[in-house]
């Protein structure tokens, strides 16, 4: 009974804490500006299934894709076993409650999970050595120092512990089963028949006292479920959130051509007014008109909710940065850092609001305190970062929104670009040529 009470407590605290964290992140995301992505539901669903569920874009780099698939597959399939663990945890004396009714299919299922878990273990070890021994540049950039690096390693260690727990549980149970001492019902012939633990169990645990074996089995069981809730609680603070957010993030992807930047309607209204000879520039705004927003983005709350969702979905793999022409040639810009800065800032704003009230202003902003002008002006808008992201994150739209604020609200831009705009306005070309010379090429030799 104590164990059921403990399990219930763990269950409630685990899910409760996770729910609270998700609520906070959700409200942080909805601090962003409006953007309509409610169209094309069919195509959106297809995109999500291909890119998040099917991991299509991961496979442009096949080796990491296969290793990642091993962990993803093990994780997904293990959820079935997790359902059993939840039920076993609540039902008195239940042990492997699905086994009697599923029979041979149960053996197949657990065997499948075991095999995938071995793959996941191998993948985790390779990933750990890749991150820490091989000097892969994208894992060792400045923005990865400190927490992001630790975060990446912690997830892999947790994964290894989780797999160790599964095999401790199944292995000890196997040895008990052979001696007719397992709590599983329908004790049959010699073995439970799970592919890996039927030989790993005897190898590790043969000859141990039944009491020790029962303890080991329980340590594996509790260890597994504690790790699951630890993982769930940890998600909100980790890049690992992508395991959930990859799905909504790809569903709400930009379905237009990548070259199309958003149209600023607020500017359209002003330009129409300017070009309309009958417009009265001093007219009072119509009744109920909304107060104009600032042009572009200065802080994270000026970005669209999709950019903020992007930032929470980012798993800091750095494919964007490793393909960015500016970054490759030593400029300060790193698209991954743009995403990390955005997430850190919107989390800070959200935490401040909850702590100090809605009107609290900490005097900081995304632009300036987190992202510098030098980073923004290094971008060539080539879309390589957008193309590379395995879950369709769009760093470029953040860069453009911040540039818009710099240019239209503060007139802070490289002098050559100010000159270019003047040329466009005065002579209809970015260079100082006379518009009357535009067709001269026709008669030149």
């Amino acid at each position: 009974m104590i164990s059921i009470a403990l399990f219930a407590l763990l269950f409630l605290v685990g899910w409760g804490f996770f729910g609270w964290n998700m609520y906070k992140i959700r409200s942080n995301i909805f601090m962003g500006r409006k953007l309509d992505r409610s169209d094309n539901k069919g195509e959106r669903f297809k995109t999500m299934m291909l890119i998040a569920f099917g991991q299509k874009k991961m496979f442009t780099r096949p080796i990491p894709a296969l290793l990642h698939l091993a962990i993803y597959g093990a994780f997904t399939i293990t959820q079935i076993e997790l359902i059993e663990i939840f039920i076993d945890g609540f039902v008195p004396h239940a042990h492997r409650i699905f086994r009697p009714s599923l029979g041979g299919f149960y053996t197949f299922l657990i065997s499948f999970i075991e095999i995938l878990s071995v793959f996941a273990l191998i993948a985790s070890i390779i990933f750990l050595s890749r991150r820490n021994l091989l000097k892969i540049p994208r894992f060792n950039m400045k923005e990865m120092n400190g927490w992001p690096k630790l975060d990446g390693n912690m997830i892999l260690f947790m994964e290894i512990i989780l797999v160790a727990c599964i095999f401790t549980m199944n292995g000890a149970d196997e040895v008990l089963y052979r001696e007719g001492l397992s709590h599983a019902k329908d004790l049959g012939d010699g073995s439970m028949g799970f592919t890996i633990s039927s030989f790993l169990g005897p190898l590790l645990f043969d000859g141990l006292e039944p009491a020790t074996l029962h303890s080991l089995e329980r340590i594996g069981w509790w260890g597994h479920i504690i790790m699951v809730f630890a993982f769930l609680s940890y998600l909100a603070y980790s890049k690992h959130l992508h395991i959930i957010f990859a799905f909504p993030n790809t569903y709400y992807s930009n379905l237009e051509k990548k070259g199309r930047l958003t149209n600023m309607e607020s500017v359209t209204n002003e330009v129409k007014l300017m070009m309309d000879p009958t417009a009265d520039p001093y007219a009072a705004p119509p009744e109920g008109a909304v107060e104009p927003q600032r042009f572009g983005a200065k802080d994270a709350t000026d970005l669209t909710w999709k950019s903020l969702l992007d930032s929470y979905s980012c798993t800091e793999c750095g494919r964007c940065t490793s393909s960015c022409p500016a970054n490759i040639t030593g400029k300060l810009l790193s698209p991954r850092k743009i995403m990390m800065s955005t997430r850190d800032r919107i989390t800070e704003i959200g935490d401040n609001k909850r702590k100090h009230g809605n009107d609290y202003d900490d005097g900081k902003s995304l632009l300036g305190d987190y992202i510098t002008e030098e980073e923004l002006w290094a971008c060539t808008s080539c879309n390589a970062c957008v193309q590379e992201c395995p879950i369709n994150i769009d760093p470029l739209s953040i860069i453009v929104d911040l540039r818009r604020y710099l240019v239209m609200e503060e007139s802070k831009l490289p002098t050559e670009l100010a000159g270019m705009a003047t040329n466009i306005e005065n002579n209809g070309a970015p260079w100082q040529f006379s518009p009357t010379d535009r067709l001269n090429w026709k008669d030149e030799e």
Partner: protein
Amino acid sequence: MGLHVPTMAEKMAAGESPEILFWVGCSGSFDDRAKKITKALVKILNKCNVDFAVLGTEENCTGDPAKRAGNEFTFQMQAMMNIQVLDGYEVKKIVTGCPHCFNTLKNEYPELGGNYEVIHHTQLIQELINQGKLALKDGDTFKGKKITFHDPCYLGRANDVYEAPRSLIEKLDAELVEMKRCKTKGLCCGAGGAQMFKEAEKGNKEINVERTEDALETKANIIATGCPFCNTMMTDGLKSFNKENEIEVLDVAELIAKAEDL
């Protein structure tokens, strides 16, 4: 042979409306190197008797570099003026030699009321070949030459056009060799996003030099592009390796015009 380049105004005065508008773009109109690309394309259009016209002095910057630089006001003013002119001439179809104009006209004008069918000049040339209006001769202009194609970002990633320029190069009597970074993974030349008009930010290398190295690795004799900005950047890149006399940077339209002895 002189070029036949009617303007929309002339066409309208004659009571005609051409099938397609050739949007020359600022580079194509004013930049000495890009003007050659413009003329190469006109020669192809003339040869195939394409019923086209240009806006001439009525053409104006699309506003692309202003928009990428964050200057939405300048962009939209340009766009609205251009849309008035285009709609005044009832333009339906536009071809352009500049992927930046192409992208902006195609993707960013519709929301401001300008709806046209917009194609890149490599797509038009491909259409002409498909329709049998242009039969490439088996000339030996490019015999034994290696050509590599540098994907302009605003043609490739931005608009998913990868095959049209390649299919044209493949029709030549030359070998198409790919750079290690090509198509979706193509590296930018460094000019996009209004970088063409400013000094690069502080770094340890110029982007066009990095990209030129990719091209040099292929041992190509010709670097083909489909964008006047890329052309400038790659030409400058070759100069930094003192290779400008060994390797040519040519637009796909120029390759076709050369093959046709135009």
